[in-house]
């Protein structure tokens, strides 16, 4: 490590324009992996409303008493922000799966010469799938 003259974070991150495909793939994979973990917890929190719901717990939803599970989910799905986040979640999950598959191939030593192309392919496929999902996720949100 540079001690006598520490170029600091600039060395690693302010040069992001010079990053090559493999480095971007690594950063995106880390990021998406941790986003998925984060989502897992919110997912558990929301689904766990099914436990009190099974015991008959209710909440006020659109003027009537609804069980908490249905109420929570339907009210969340009514928020535009949640719909948009779902599109983002899909993008993150799809990229993680595709790039994860790429990494598994890399681990097996398959197609190492095309590692950059397979990363770009993951990105493009992710983009395409995400765009295609928009009508489904956003339907009725407006």
């Amino acid at each position, binding site marked *: *490590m*540079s*001690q*006598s*003259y520490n*170029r600091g974070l600039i*060395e*690693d991150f302010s*040069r992001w*324009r*010079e990053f*090559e*495909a*493999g*480095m971007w*793939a*690594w950063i995106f994979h880390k990021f998406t992996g941790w986003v998925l973990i984060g989502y897992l917890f919110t997912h558990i929190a929301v689904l766990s409303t099914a436990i009190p719901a099974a015991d008959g717990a209710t909440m006020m939803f659109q003027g009537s008493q609804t069980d908490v599970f249905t109420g929570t989910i339907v009210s969340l799905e009514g928020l535009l922000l949640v719909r948009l986040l779902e599109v983002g979640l899909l993008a993150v999950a799809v990229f993680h799966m595709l790039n994860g598959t790429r*990494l598994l191939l*890399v*681990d*097996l*030593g398959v197609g*190492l010469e095309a*590692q*950059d192309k397979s990363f770009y392919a993951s990105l493009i496929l992710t983009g395409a799938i995400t765009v295609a999902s928009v009508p489904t996720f956003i339907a009725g949100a407006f």
Partner: protein
Amino acid sequence: MSTQTPKQTDESSETDAETEVPSKGDERRDEKRRRAAEERARRQAEEAEKAAADEETVELKVFRYDPEIEGKQEPRFDTFHVPFTKGMTVLDALMYSRDTYDSSLTFRHSCRQAVCGSDAMFVNGGQKLACKTQISELEEPIRVEPLPHADVEKDLVVDLEHFYDQMEAVEPYFQTNEYPDGELEEQRQTRENREKIKMSTRCIWCSACMSSCNIAAGDNEYLGPAAINKAYRFAMDDREGEEIKQKRLEIIEQEHGVWRCQTQFSCTEVCPKDIPLTEHIQELKREAVKNNLKFW
């Protein structure tokens, strides 16, 4: 000479205020020094002018730093204008700058043909061998910096001691205890085996890969791509025999060995000898797994 901090582009010839009652000798020496400085400034200005007037010049921004000289302890960039000639490399441009503008500009070089490995630098944000990098392929101004993630000694020279330590750690020399039968028999290698290790033998110890590796930057104990490639070169050499291979795999699969690699491919991108470093590291990972898991 090396204590001055010359400006390359502006021609500042100081008209000096005379000091009080100097001795005849001092005066003469001062006069001489003054004239030499003027002469140098004139020549440098001339060259700079000529270079700037010349249509084809390249602008170099070169990192300067010298912990031992007061005026240079604060790192800075110096600009050099170098007349472009066909086929000019970054090393050529640096040598021109040193020889024409500032003889204190320091960088390592020797063979000038990409075999000695002494001039790996950070050029326009990438680890490059200066003698193998064509000016015509770079965007201007060309930023030349010392290798990242290494101690800067002076200007473009970095301390490579740590890199050499890692290389030594994998015992980078042929070892065997399996000898051919006849006393004067040669240790033959099959063509296929030679082909297998061919690329890995090309390493010139330039440290570009080590400098580019994000993992090596954060983990000083990580062997790094070059050392692992060196280990590959011998572990895959059939002539070393099974016992030595076991020893080599132990070094390779230690905590700071192959498993640190996150397949970012940075090393493979920068290696001036086109060694498929990531591929070799991945193959050693599989080799290590096969060696430890035995279901069959």
